[in-house]
């Protein structure tokens, strides 16, 4: 008697597990779909912020290297090439931002947490910001 109740408990739990996992998975799928559908087109420029403040805005159409200097030290090196932005050097030990792929679509970001550097791609519509930054 006890044994059958235990096994039915177990069966119930297994059923709950399957329902729970499928539910979570479906929610994540929807979120991922939204993420990919709202993914921006090719961006026009990148904005660099350090510790929440604006460091500079640079056009993606022009190949150049931007050293991001914090307190007199080159913390990160931003390379803009063929319409993509990539961080190729960092003075932090983990180098996560260096390993990250180059970005080119609007809303994409590269983050260097130890230096609090954020590089984000912007679209065309904010081009007036560009002239302000310059």
């Amino acid at each position: 008697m006890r044994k059958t109740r235990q096994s039915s408990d177990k069966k119930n739990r297994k059923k709950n597990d399957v329902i729970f996992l499928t539910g979570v998975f479906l929610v994540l799928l929807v979120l991922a779909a939204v993420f990919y559908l709202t993914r921006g087109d090719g961006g026009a420029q990148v904005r660099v912020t350090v510790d929440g403040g604006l460091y500079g805005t640079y056009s993606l159409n022009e190949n150049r290297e931007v050293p991001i200097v914090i307190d007199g030290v080159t913390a990160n090196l931003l390379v803009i090439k063929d319409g993509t932005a990539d961080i190729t050097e960092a003075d932090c030990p983990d180098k996560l931002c260096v390993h990250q792929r180059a970005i080119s679509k609007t809303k994409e970001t590269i983050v260097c947490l130890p230096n609090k550097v954020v590089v984000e791609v912007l679209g065309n519509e904010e081009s007036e910001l560009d002239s302000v930054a310059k």
Partner: protein
Amino acid sequence: MRNKVAYLGVFLALALICSYVESLIPFYFGIPGVKLGLTNVVVVLMLYCVGEKEAFAVSVLRIVLAGFLFGNMFSILYSLAGGILSFLVMVLLKRTGKLGVLPVSVSGGIFHNVGQIAVAALVVENYNILYYLPVLLIAGFVTGFLIGVAAREIIVRVGEKFS
């Protein structure tokens, strides 16, 4: 469990070794911070076979020690945020008694990433990085699932020895 302190020490050592092994594997998905979370096997195992308090203690100590050994102050901060949030969610789900190891571990994986990116957004004061949240949630689901499978198999085979 007899010799509790000794056992907890062994668990902590095991968790640290998992951290070390993981730091050796280059494991980049183009999105920074996505990791397998091998130590979560130890945390889930302890949650089911030893106790909640003990699992929490080992989880936090592991993060601090691994941070000093293989990381830096920043990695400790993010790992703590992810680790504590993920632990709380796992304990709550486990306490309902309606779910098995796999969903608990999957939720842990997901909320680990939620905690980390939330702290990251606060630190850099830029909330646009939350844009990557859906990708991180899926990564958490997948890694949590793999960890859950491993933990479940270990619990089935050797779990009784610890209780």
